């Protein structure tokens, strides 16, 4: 099968099997920042934004995402121009092995778009689909708070 998608603002076409998952299609087409963790929708390592909403790409048939807008973590910032959230994660010490980080960053991005000043409970709720085996989550929550603070100072997202 073949289908058109918009990934990180660029139109592209993928070839994929009829029962293929979006996670696999993305990785096969070079978007390896989307990580394969559990293939069960539990860990959040494969989290992407699909039409603006955070979803586990391992739980999406590629065929079901044809024509849709997909954002991976590389779509919000780069090595040379990191997003405020990416910087906050580094500064807060919220990255150890880094495997959960792309998913965590995107979940944070989605949270702060809808709720620029979340409470700790709201942060934990928004990131409830992202597991981390390294950090114990404390630094991750600090990173989210730091990002929220900085985004408010900077006047929010500019897209």
């Amino acid at each position, binding site marked *: *099968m073949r289908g058109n998608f918009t990934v990180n603002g660029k139109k592209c076409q993928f070839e994929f099997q*009829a*029962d293929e*998952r979006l996670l696999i299609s993305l990785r096969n087409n070079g978007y390896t920042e989307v990580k394969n963790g559990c293939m069960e*929708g*539990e860990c*959040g390592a494969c*989290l992407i934004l*699909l039409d603006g*909403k*955070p*979803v*586990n790409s391992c*739980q*999406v*048939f590629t*065929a*079901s995402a*044809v024509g849709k807008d997909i954002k991976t973590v590389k779509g919000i910032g780069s090595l040379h121009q990191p997003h405020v959230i990416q910087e906050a994660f580094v500064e807060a010490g919220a990255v150890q092995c880094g495997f959960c980080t792309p998913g965590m960053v995107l*979940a944070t991005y989605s949270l702060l778009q809808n709720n620029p000043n979340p409470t700790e409970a709201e942060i934990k*709720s*928004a*990131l*409830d*689909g992202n597991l981390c085996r390294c950090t114990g989550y404390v630094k991750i929550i600090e990173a989210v708070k730091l990002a929220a603070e900085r985004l408010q100072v900077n006047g929010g997202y500019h897209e």
Partner: protein
Amino acid sequence: MKELKWYYPKTLADAEILVQQKNVLPHGGGTGLLLRNLTGVDGLIELYQLPLKGIKRSGNIIKIGSLCTYADVVLEMRKIKPDHILEKCLRHSANTPLRNRITVGGSIAMFPPWSDLIGALIVLNARVSLIGENPGDFPIERYIKDKILRQNTMFTVVKFSLADWHSAHYREVRTSSDMPIFNHTVLLKITEGRIVESRLITVGTATKYTRLTKVEEYLNGLQINSIDGTEIEKRVSLKFTGSRIDDPAYTSIKAGIELGRMIQQMVRS
């Protein structure tokens, strides 16, 4: 091996024709079909272009499109009637990214044993609208029990009436995002300190769900300050089976205790 074929209907009329084909299933974006083996499935009908999203209120009737996700239901029901039982049932179901994919339609059609949705819809006396081989409007209990009714059909809307219920939902889970081993949904109508009507259900039992009619009989007509939790527990006798149940007898006792506690907490608040 025959390759799975995808269909992308743009109208409900097109979808209705497709769903009547043999071995072709509707897919609304949920996770149910990903979990099951697709052997024997020749085609999937991708529904996202169809007008099946949205939650509408018409007087006291709520209509939920089958493509609404759990996240959609939580958000919209919060606006329509804060603390509605549907919001209570779904807000902790699965996790944030999964709630953005799990659909009302898929959940009803597949009715997994850990469903947080079905119990609430049954006690709300919800009805489903179907298109396909068996078009029409049916009580949800009939839809989930009748395999023949479900064949080669898809449902478009589920509806129920808004009423003033005191409500609560309990999930027996090990962690907050776990799939429940069982769950209780309770609706109570209370007038001048007396329970005038009660509707109670447990989902996850050996028969998929069980209405707690003996508890309902006990509660109806009772003053809320004379509710005895142990009397509730005595009237709960549930059968549990399956690999997720370590000890069916213990689970049944626990179900009774949690129900008693839940109802006492409801009336206290």
